């Protein structure tokens, strides 16, 4: 009997599995690294500085003896970033597992895509919004010459729209699968 999917698909799924587990590892390591700052009594806050003649540089400034608000924001940033990434990676690994078994268009796959979308939202909150809020709140304690820095990104919205379309396609596939089950 031939394989349920082609060699090319197997390669893609192999890469996706590696990507998924690497993502899990990166999420855990980055969460650990982010929490380490708290044990040292510091929190990194994103900031920008203008260097005359060279432009604006963005980076992280370490704030010693941070306020509780900054500590909580940093903690939320670390947990949201790692949590969002873990949700995305485990959803991807589950989809890969289904594909390896030759199970396509299961109704539960829609739930996995919703989980990925939720993970992107949480990740964006942790990776973009909370650091921006922390930067604004830390304005008074930033070293001289540094400014608060926050940015707005639209790629998560675009990605969620794409995921919505894929979820709709999966719904059609799930219906087709149901209709052709038991067909000989």
């Amino acid at each position: 009997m031939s394989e349920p999917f082609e060699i090319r698909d197997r390669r893609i799924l192999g890469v996706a599995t590696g990507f998924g587990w690497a993502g899990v590892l990166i999420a855990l390591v980055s969460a650990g690294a982010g929490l380490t700052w708290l044990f040292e009594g510091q929190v990194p806050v994103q900031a920008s500085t203008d260097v005359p003649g060279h432009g604006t540089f963005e980076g992280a400034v370490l704030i010693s003896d941070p306020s509780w608000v900054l500590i909580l924001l940093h903690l939320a940033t670390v947990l949201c970033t790692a949590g969002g990434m873990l949700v995305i990676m485990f959803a991807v690994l589950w989809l890969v597992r289904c594909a390896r078994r030759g199970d396509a268009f299961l109704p539960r796959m829609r739930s996995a895509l919703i989980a990925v979308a939720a993970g992107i939202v949480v990740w964006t909150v942790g990776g973009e919004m909370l650091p921006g809020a922390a930067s604004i709140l830390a304005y008074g304690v930033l070293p001289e010459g540094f400014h608060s820095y926050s940015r707005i990104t639209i790629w998560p919205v675009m990605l969620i729209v794409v995921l919505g379309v894929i979820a709709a396609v999966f719904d059609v596939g799930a219906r087709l699968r149901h209709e052709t089950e038991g067909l000989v």
Partner: protein
Amino acid sequence: MGEEDLSRLHCRVGELAAERGLTLTELAERVGISLVNLSVLKNDRARAIRFTTLIALCDALGCQPGDLFELAEQPRG
């Protein structure tokens, strides 16, 4: 149509094959479908049949589509 309605339909492929001295493996080869799918059909677990499969079965068994299936009486009440 509910799942329970399908149980009323019986596929006589097993009986017809036996009458003609054909094993399911031989019949599957002649029809060009897998033994698994033929077993699904024989054990009344199929939910639908392609016209191509139906024609191939009729050709292999020398019968009409109507000979392949029988429908049990509708339960009263």
